[in-house]
């Protein structure tokens, strides 16, 4: 069986035409949050922390979570987007605090290091790579390299180690999370002007396995490959995470069968009885010292007018440009990489047994980013069927064109595409596949192409409008990761309540 699903892009497309019915209902609420992704949910939590409970969160899908949502079948839950959170930086007290609240951090040890719940850390073995016809441990190509490759890998990782700990004159890390904490050091910021590929060449790297590995990493975090992504972002992937929250300097990650939907679910408790789902906000404007937001109820096919004192737009900028006037000029610089996820139910996953099935299974030089074994974080001995989720990002120079093509192809096409990509490592996977669910994310994540992260467009898009309409979404950070969305939500509420701002 094959199914083709996706975010509600058709409803979103109605924003162009705006043929929505006139509002027949009115809601008054002091604080309105538009968008129930991690940024919106995190804002809800921060309101709660500030003792504010009169807010409403409006979401167009039938569930909260945005890109941190999940699906479920008979055998397992599986992610429909984000699927892991790397161990937080030790400096990131807000995040540590949240993880402690949710019992992901159980306690702090004598030396002050957080103790993470064993069940939520990726079980071993966590990663394997299919390289030169064999599975090997880890995602860095190792067995079968030339000596020159090994030397380049070593040199590359040394450079990244330096970047990871280096600070600018302002005593800030050159690369930090959330991104706005990073140093203003001019030389480092100049890296945002070139592509990662350019940086690779400028630094006299030539190794093909290294190139492929970096390409994989860039796509993994940004959707964009080494050719198109900013070098600052590319290096941030390696240097932003300080690996300093465990004594062993772990680079492990936290993960769950349902992916980051688990984190979204923790946040959802702050929106109990305060959310409107299946509601597409199609217009937001300031009028008479109030904000008027109009939303279309996709279930009852009616519209509602929401009158608020302040609004947080936790929706992406490509949407906001249709809701609020005068945003198109800078929004054109926001590019989003489409993603495809495919969840397969397989009777078995035969391969050549060179290294056992891991949480993350990457195939060298494949089209996609490999697959995650969704039942990896279970303690059972055996599984009737295995459930895996395959990830593919449409890295290209023209993302708009790519997106159009994405929606043109049918499910049979995508199914074959996914299976063919997996066949390299699992030649008879087609025979063992029982079910394929393809999930398309047309505007998957913001793409930090050169010039975007420290560019004007982002800056302008972040400006609040008359201290009434505020913006918080991971696309305003420039890189799409949980931590950024989480802090966007916190910072925007602090800005509203305390009048504090963070600059970039």
């Amino acid at each position, binding site marked *: 069986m094959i199914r083709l699903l996706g975010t509600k892009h058709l409803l979103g497309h109605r924003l162009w035409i705006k043929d929505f019915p006139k509002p027949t209902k009115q809601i008054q609420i002091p604080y309105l949050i538009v968008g129930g992704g991690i940024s919106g949910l995190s804002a809800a939590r921060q309101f709660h922390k500030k003792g504010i409970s009169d807010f409403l969160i409006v979401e167009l899908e039938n569930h909260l979570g945005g890109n941190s949502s999940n699906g479920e079948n008979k055998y397992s839950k599986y992610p429909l987007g984000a699927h892991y959170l790397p161990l937080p930086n030790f400096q990131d007290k807000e995040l540590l605090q949240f993880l402690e609240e949710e019992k992901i951090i159980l306690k702090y040890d004598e030396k002050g290091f957080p103790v993470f719940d*064993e*069940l939520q*850390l*990726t*079980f*071993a*073995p*966590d990663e394997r790579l299919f390289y030169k016809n064999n599975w090997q441990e880890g995602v860095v190509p190792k067995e079968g390299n030339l000596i020159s490759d090994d030397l380049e890998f070593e040199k590359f990782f040394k450079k990244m180690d330096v970047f990871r700990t280096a600070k600018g004159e302002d005593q800030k890390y050159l690369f930090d999370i959330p991104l706005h904490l990073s140093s203003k050091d001019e030389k480092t910021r100049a890296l945002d002007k070139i592509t990662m590929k350019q940086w690779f060449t400028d630094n006299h790297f030539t190794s093909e396995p290294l190139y492929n590995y970096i390409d994989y990493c860039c796509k993994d975090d940004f959707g964009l490959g080494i050719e198109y992504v900013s070098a600052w972002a590319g290096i941030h992937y390696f240097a932003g995470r300080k690996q300093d929250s465990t004594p062993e300097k772990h680079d*492990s990650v936290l993960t769950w069968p349902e992916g980051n939907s688990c984190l979204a679910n923790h946040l959802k408790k702050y929106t109990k009885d305060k959310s409107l789902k299946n509601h597409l906000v199609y217009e937001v404007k300031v009028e008479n010292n109030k904000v008027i937001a109009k939303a279309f109820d996709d279930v009852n096919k009616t519209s509602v007018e929401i009158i608020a004192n302040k609004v947080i737009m936790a929706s992406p900028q490509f949407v906001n440009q249709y809701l609020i006037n005068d945003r198109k000029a800078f929004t054109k610089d926001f590019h989003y990489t489409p993603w495809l996820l495919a969840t397969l139910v397989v009777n078995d996953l035969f391969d050549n047994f060179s290294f*056992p099935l891991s949480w993350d299974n990457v195939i060298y030089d494949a089209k996609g980013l490999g697959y995650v074994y969704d039942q990896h974080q279970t*303690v*059972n*001995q*055996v599984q009737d069927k295995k459930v895996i989720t395959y990830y593919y990002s449409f890295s290209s120079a023209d993302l708009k064109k790519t997106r159009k093509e994405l929606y043109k192809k049918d499910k049979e096409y995508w199914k074959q595409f996914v299976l063919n990509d997996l066949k390299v490592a699992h030649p008879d996977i087609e025979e063992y596949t029982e079910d394929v669910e393809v999930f398309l994310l047309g505007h998957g994540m913001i793409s930090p192409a050169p010039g975007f992260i420290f560019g004007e467009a982002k800056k302008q898009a972040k400006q609040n409008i008359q201290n009434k309409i505020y913006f918080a979404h991971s696309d305003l950070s420039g890189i799409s990761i949980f931590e950024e969305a989480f802090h966007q939500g916190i910072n925007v509420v602090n800005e509203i309540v305390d009048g504090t701002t963070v600059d970039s």
Partner: protein
Amino acid sequence: MGKKFLRFEFLLLFAVFIIATCGLIYELVAGTLASYLLGDSVKQFSFIIGVYLFSMGIGSFFSKFFNKNLLNTFVEIEILVGLIGGLSSVVLFLLFESVGSFQFILYLFVFVTGFLVGLEIPLLMNILKDRVEFKDLVSNVFTFDYIGALLASILFPLVLVPKLGIMGTSLFFGMINVSIAIALCFLLKRELKKPSLLRAKAIFSFVLLLVFFIFSNDILAYSEGKLYGENIIYTNSTPYQRIVLTHNKSDYRLYLNNNLQFSSADEYRYHEALVHPAMSMAKSVENVLVLGGGDGLAVREILKYKDVKKVTLVDLDEGMTKLFKTNSVLTNFNQNSLNNPKVTVINTDAYIWAKNNKEKYDVAIIDFPDPSNYSLGKLYSLNFYQTIKTILKPNAAVVIQTTSPYFAPKSFWCINKTVMQVFPQVDAYHVYVPSFGEWGYTIAINGFRTTFNTVNRKADGLKFYNYQFDRFNYFTNDMISNQIEINRLDNQILVRYFDEEWGKLQ
């Protein structure tokens, strides 16, 4: 004419060479199989060579009764040798279960192949005697015969067995044998009578051998049980494992996925040591939990205490517990323990079960398979022991089989150290079980109200354990390992230790 004749002679001599090679191969196959399956290789090889040579003699003797159609007979025998020799190992493998007839059939094969090969040489001499000078003939025939023998005996151990396996080797040479016959059918078309009939027979035999050759792995898998070197009395594949029970003299052995689980001769040492220390130390033994141990042998020991009111056994494999509830040989071993009214058997995943369970126990006996893969490794993780702690009463005792401190000291102490993170009192001990070697356990007490040297109760009639725990918890230097990490789900370091240590031995 001269040229053509040369070819004729050469062909037949080449056939001799092949027959000799093949004949010796069949003999070696028989010898190897016999010593594999029956043991005592000196005796087996010596008998087989003797019988083979003797039957060749008989063959030679009988060759004089063949006078007509010599060439046809020669080719026919060639086919027959290929067929019988080639198939011999298949038949022997399949028949191994019935040991009695096995020896008979083995020697019958050796005899028949020897006999046929013995027929060939005189026959050939007869064919060629009018065409070649006698002196040349004899010397040529025997030269080829012996070169073939040399080739076979060198190739057999160095190339053939490692590459093709025993069954593959004999089938392969059967095919070579028959293909010579096929070649002769074509090349000596004019000299042979009814060459097409002969050819059909030869091709049929070749195809038959080929089919067996292609499926030789399946046949081998089917008869795999016969390689335990003991008499198999029961085999069963459950969804989780392959259970094999063997019998040899008074000893029964149970194998799970080819790993020895117990030997009836000495399992009492293992199970008494597993059960009685914990049972004697615990504050109370009313409610006892067994995880794994689907053979019911630990339960048998537990039931020796009158105060036990309830035993819960959780084992994933229903096939296993069913077998040990119903098979009369096996219920004899566990004294029908799994059918005892005090005992509840639950077939489910122990980890999941423990997470959801609400009841609390006085004693927990944990007897899982060794941590040889990442799935099993989870059952030895910190989180697993923390989970177990939640279903234990205060001052409950828990014991875990923790593989061999001698063969796998890192693995052994890794589990011990992991348990130490969870329970207030932890110790380790070991016993010698002849069929396993030095074997060990980690024991822990969930509180401070009792100690490892407390004996709160004793059972009668033990053969091995004497309730002196301090006789078992001393470890010599060769069983100690330091600098060990704790086994967590996110590092599964134990599986790595285990693989490193047992891998070294294999």
